[in-house]
């Protein structure tokens, strides 16, 4: 087991290297630079700026320098904002995104699993139909439609919740409700559907029949035997779900004006702020890789049949 974990940890390194390399070179081959503006700068000024940011060196030297800096945990200076470096911007906005993401993921997992279980146990009753219809809504409606519609209903017409803002503002924790629901709905729906189908399959399996034959209580069978087996597909879905939540948060932060990393990402892509874009991509990728790693570990705990060789 320990060996497996170490091997997985080592396996992350090439993935991360590839991400850094791809985004570095996509950005370098792009037409236009961060210092192109309406007003053309004098030649000398431009040269000085380029020298300051080492843009006058050959690309491969720049790449080496960047790689080395990233390994030390330094994401470099921002090309647009003079006051602080990329690290500062990322680490002031990242916590907000993480809070939003974790809440959304928790909602999706908790409600998704319970809804899926419920509709599997009560298969072909109104409970099942209602849950599954709700789930198909969650899958079909894109989150940038759900967001504004929820805003319109709950914030503008009913006035129960604030339209936008963040926890440090006047409305406090209330600001979390709409963005996290918006972000979680699609993943809730997928988890509920997955859970339902795997639950139905597990309920028909032999070991459940054995458990019933032994005369175990229904609740024990359901929560101890079935749940563990049925969770496997849900756990393996968590990796893609997390990737989706990261991407989705870019839009949700835009709609609800959350001061998170996603907003920075979109802004810096428009500004061609190369170092900031790459910094954000690297941070997102690290989070994603770590999440996938955790998911794999959980999976191996749940399913002893997996071999670690």
């Amino acid at each position, binding site marked *: 087991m320990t060996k497996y974990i170490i091997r997985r940890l080592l396996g992350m390194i090439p993935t991360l290297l*590839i991400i850094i390399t791809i985004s570095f070179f996509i950005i370098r081959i*792009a*037409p*236009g630079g961060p210092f192109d503006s309406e007003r053309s700068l004098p030649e000398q000024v431009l040269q000085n700026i380029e020298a300051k940011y080492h843009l006058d060196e050959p690309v491969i030297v720049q790449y080496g320098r960047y790689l080395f800096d990233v390994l030390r945990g330094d994401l470099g200076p921002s090309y647009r904002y003079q006051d602080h470096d990329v690290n500062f911007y990322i680490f002031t906005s990242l916590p907000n995104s993480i809070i939003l993401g974790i809440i959304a993921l928790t909602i999706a997992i908790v409600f998704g699993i319970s809804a899926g279980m419920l509709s599997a146990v009560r298969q072909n009753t109104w409970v099942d139909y209602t849950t599954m219809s709700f789930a198909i809504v969650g899958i079909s409606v894109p989150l940038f439609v759900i967001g504004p519609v929820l*805003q319109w209903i709950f914030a503008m017409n009913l006035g129960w919740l604030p339209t936008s803002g963040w926890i440090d503002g006047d409305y406090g924790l209330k600001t979390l409700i709409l963005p996290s629901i918006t972000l979680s709905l699609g993943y809730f729906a997928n988890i509920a559907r997955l859970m339902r189908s795997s639950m139905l*399959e597990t309920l028909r399996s032999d070991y459940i029949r054995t458990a019933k034959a032994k005369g175990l209580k229904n609740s024990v069978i359901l929560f101890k035997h079935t749940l563990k087996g049925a969770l496997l597909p849900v756990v393996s879905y968590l990796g893609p779900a997390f990737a989706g939540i990261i991407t989705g948060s870019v*839009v949700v932060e835009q709609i609800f004006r959350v001061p998170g990393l996603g907003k920075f990402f979109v802004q810096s892509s428009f500004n061609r702020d190369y170092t900031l874009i790459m910094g954000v991509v690297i941070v*997102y990728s690290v989070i994603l890789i770590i999440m996938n790693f955790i998911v794999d570990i959980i999976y191996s705990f749940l399913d002893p049949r997996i071999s670690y060789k």
Partner: protein
Amino acid sequence: MAKVKSTKETAVNEFDQEIKGNSLGRDAWRRLKKNKMAVASIFVVVIYAFLSIFASVLPIYSYKEIILDHQHLRPSLTKTAGELMLEKKKKDLYFMAYKDGRVEIPAEDKEALKEMSPNQIWAYFYEIGEAGGIELNTSEQRKLDRMIEDIETELMFDIKKINYLSDEGKFVNIEKLSVGQLTEIYSGLIGASISDIMVQSEKEVTLQITNQTKVENDGVSDEEMARIIANELESITTKAKDKLLIATLVSKIANQVEDYAEDDLQAVAEEGSTSFPLTKTVSVNDRLEAKVQATKMHDRKYFFGTDYSGRDMLSRIIYGGQVSIAIGFIGTITSVLIGIVVGAFAGYLGGKVDYILMRIVDVIYGLPYMLLVIIMMAIFGRNIMNLFFALAIVSWLTVARMVRGQIISLKNSEFVEAARSMGASPGRIIFKHLVPNSLSIIIVFSTLRIPAFIMMESFLSFLGLGVSAPYASWGSLVGDAVEGMTLYPWRLLFPALAMTVFLFAMNFLGDGLRDAFDPQSKNQL
């Protein structure tokens, strides 16, 4: 049940019934037909497809025609644009009258006003005003009267065709004339010298090419841009240039003709006895005549309202759907084709090829690829081709994995063995035997892929990184609408609804197809 005996010898079972072979496709179709939601979805998808394919011949207004007077008109089935403009103006004036303190309202209503949204407040005063409770002062009344007059008389011209009496005595469409002839006609119309017109139109064409090049090469440095433009101007053929010149001249002449028509018809409109729309042949001079359709500008009806520059939402949604659906379908087909080729080779050849291809897939799979797409869109410019390309690059992975798995499970079966022993090449075995046998799974997957693709496209357009104006897609329409959704909810509601219904239908259809092709999967995701 006894069947009509066919002349061919058929297999018969013990009850003398004909045994009919059933293909997988027919079997799946039979099961699909039982699924009511799937059948309904097929209808919905067909309707959407029809609307998008025939968008250009449908009787709808142009999706990019800007009429600033018609800004933000609410949707209405019965009222014309003119009536709605008037209503908007009146609401504005009544509210101003209240602000000036010229309107007395009960105290409890005053309290209630604080709780109301702007739209409700306007509606409240409009009601009072229409009942005669608000007196407008003379200057306001004059403004209103002028507006009413404009609404009744302002015309719009659609020039169908301009004909020129040639030297042979026949009328020909001016688009078919040469640059020289057009210059002559135009100089006759405006009275300028032929050489001046030539110089002017040359300049305009150069400008057109320059602008076009600038848009296409967004973001390069100034010197680079100058070089590209010079190159572009040099390399253009005489034929292409003539085409541009003709287009420029024709539109100039059309403008002149419109002025003539306006002079001709405005008086008719003001007199008020003729009914519009009116199609008329206008003779500009003895050799030039034009077929013009005149409509009252403010007689238009906007069933879905208008947007911030007075464009018809209905046609924007239809054209937006065209873009979204096209990207969904073409993108899916491209990504599925790439996936099939990669997956089939990896699966069939196995060994090192398989290992390398699948490691590549694994690594790309681990990337936050939507973020890479966003970077690509931001950097390489926002146009439909880039968008489509960026999405297709990242979305073939799942198909590749799926096809590989399918091929591995099929490649040792007897029919492949047979083909191999007959000397079929690997390419033939893959594309004639293995791929067709995994087609059902691929079809099902593709159907579920289309809505995902549309969602990705709309996601980018929503962020402002996809389709840009004057083109529209569902995502960009929703994105534009978010800003003013309290005041103009229809701008959000209709595109969102159109999109949701289509995505619903595609998802139901995909689920239905999957159940039909593989009944055992009934309870899986």
